[in-house]
């Protein structure tokens, strides 16, 4: 345990006491939380001596004197906020959470097909939902991961989504997490998504705030894709420029399932995304794509893991970084091919566009291959805007800024083009250029 954050660890432990006392839970949930806080107590916060956190120092995150907020409180700002919801006008269902708590007044649920559950996790906890109890935290490693343990200890709300077998949910489902209010709010959003066999669903997560303040979001999303299920996932990380965002996306891909996730990072001061997909049966196909747009002193770290546990699975991964000013990118792409996972086909690429001399990237592919009949490829490029291409565009009359934007957009579009929700994709493309201008 790190001495510099030991005090912070103790503060969270003390807070847990209050939390546990004031928010009594079912025996099952109380037990889960208690085990998690015990794990957190012994793990503490990670340090840069920890291989997994080598380039990301979370001391400022740990030491932030956070204000715990145990319910959604809009302080009478509901009308103003609801008129300005990030991506509030994209078509589909929306569950909104304020400081980690479900806000019915900012949510919008159209009629859902029979058998589909879209609810707050708090409600599911309250009802002692057995499906939740069966799956919650089961595919996650909260034993060895501090932030996952911390999230689990304070798990209170988030989204619970269950798509029954053979059902295709056409309209996207938007989970919007907003941080609002004074002080330094902390939230531990927790989402559980179960896509039944042969079902399909499109899920959007957005993390944002109503102000520009300092706060801490510590989120976890678990996605379990049933046999032959099809899951599209998009995460928009648009936190305030001073915010800390640490998140885990854990995907379990069953036989013949198809899961594709896009993570778009525009926000945050210190950001760490862990995205892990375990292909636990044959025929699974997983895509993890990401776009990082960094400016000022932003630090954005993406750690991904493609875990090929069984034969005949495919994985695709493409991360693009556009880094300006003094921003920092970190990319670590693990590909595990277990002994049994013959005929694995895994592709990974990460590309970085450095727009300033002071911007920096640490990118590392990490392949651990134990099977012998596999195809694994990875590639990494780092470069500046192509001066010759820039000149070509300008020589055709396009002003410099517009020419730069065309090239940046082309670079980022390798990721954005894959986003299946058209109105969202267009908004992200427009935001990309506004961010960098």
């Amino acid at each position, binding site marked *: 345990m790190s001495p510099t954050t030991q005090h912070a660890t103790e503060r969270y432990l003390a807070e847990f006491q209050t939390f546990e006392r004031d928010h009594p839970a079912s025996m099952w949930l109380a037990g889960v939380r208690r085990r998690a806080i015990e794990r957190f107590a012994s793990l503490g916060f990670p340090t840069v001596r920890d291989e997994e956190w080598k380039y990301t120092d979370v001391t400022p995150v740990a030491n932030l004197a956070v204000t715990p907020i145990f319910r959604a409180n809009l302080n009478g700002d509901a009308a103003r906020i609801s008129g300005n919801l990030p991506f509030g006008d994209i078509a589909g269902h929306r569950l909104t959470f304020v400081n980690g708590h479900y806000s019915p007044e900012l949510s919008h649920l159209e009629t859902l097909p029979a058998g589909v559950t879209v609810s707050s996790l708090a409600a599911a906890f309250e009802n002692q939902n057995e499906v939740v109890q069966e799956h919650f935290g089961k595919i996650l490693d909260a034993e060895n991961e501090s932030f996952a343990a911390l999230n689990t200890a304070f798990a209170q709300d988030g989204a619970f989504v269950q798509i029954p077998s053979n059902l295709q949910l056409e309209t996207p489902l938007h989970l919007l997490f907003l941080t609002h209010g004074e002080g330094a709010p902390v939230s531990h959003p927790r989402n559980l998504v179960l896509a039944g066999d042969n079902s399909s669903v499109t899920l959007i997560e957005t993390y944002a705030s109503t102000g520009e303040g300092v706060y801490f979001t510590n989120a976890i999303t678990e996605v379990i894709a049933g046999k032959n299920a099809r899951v599209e996932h998009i995460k928009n990380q648009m936190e305030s420029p001073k915010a800390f965002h640490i998140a885990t996306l854990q995907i379990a891909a069953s036989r013949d399932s198809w899961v594709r996730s896009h993570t778009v990072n525009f926000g945050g001061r210190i950001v760490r995304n862990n995205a892990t997909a375990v292909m636990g049966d044959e025929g699974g196909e997983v895509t993890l794509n990401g776009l990082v747009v960094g400016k000022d002193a932003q630090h954005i770290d993406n750690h991904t893991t493609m875990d090929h546990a069984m034969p005949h699975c495919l994985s695709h991964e493409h991360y693009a970084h556009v880094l300006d000013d003094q921003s920092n990118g970190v990319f670590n792409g693990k590909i595990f091919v277990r002994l049994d996972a013959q005929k694995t086909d895994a592709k990974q690429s990460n590309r970085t566009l450095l727009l300033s001399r002071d911007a920096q990237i640490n990118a590392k592919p990490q392949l651990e291959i134990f099977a012998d009949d596999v195809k694994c490829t990875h590639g990494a490029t780092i470069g500046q805007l*192509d001066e*010759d*291409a820039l*000149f*070509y*565009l*300008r*020589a*055709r*009359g*396009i*002003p*410099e800024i*517009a*020419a730069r934007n*065309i*090239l940046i*957009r*082309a*670079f980022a*579009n*390798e990721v954005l083009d894959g986003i299946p929700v058209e109105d969202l994709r267009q908004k992200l493309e427009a935001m990309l250029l506004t961010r960098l201008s």
Partner: protein
Amino acid sequence: MLLEIKDLHANIEGKEILRGINLTVNPGEIHAIMGPNGSGKSTLAAILAGRKEYEITQGEILFEGKDLLDLEPEERAGEGLFLAFQYPIEIPGVNTQIFLRAAVNAVRKYRGQEDLDAMQFLKLVKEKTKIVELSDQLLKRSVNEGFSGGEKKRAEIFQMAMLDPKLSILDETDSGLDIDALKIVANGVNALKSPEKSTVVITHYQRLLDYIVPDFVHVLYQGRIIQSGGKELALELERAGYDPIKAQFAEAV
């Protein structure tokens, strides 16, 4: 006078590449610049188009009386200068049609003209692709990506037609073209000819000049124009090569 280059000297990385170029192009004229490899032809074209890595140590360039060296590359395009590149670059991820519309509307804006809307733009594309017999399928791809050598050259002339320049500089647009493609490119250039518009063709081969007939031919050698003449000079060079002129030049200096 459309273009006036006076005693132009230019360096790159401390090496002097252009050593006193003088050239005047009047409206309606066609000039051919020939000369051995490495003599500075593309350097001259690049400086005219606005590449910044060359250091201009002496001389000036006037375009319709304006100091060209003061203008950004995009402003030069707006003023009506166009360079067909010797090696057109591929730009992955940038759709040709979107690029061209941005370019056309940028120069129109510079010239105080209204933007073309999608319909007007497509009409213009249709009209101009015909001139160089370019398949509009190519326009759906990224800029120059996967184009054959000949397609790249034809695409350059097509862009030229779209941007309606006053002065076009064609840097070896004929190199690597088979005879049919050469005719198409030359016909394209001739179709765009007018009494106000001028063309500078940089070439190694007389055969292009059978189709694009120059008013003047210049020989560029070691960063200087060492001889100028009418179209018969190109025929002369074709017959005797550069050696006699080089020898003459060596004697003179």
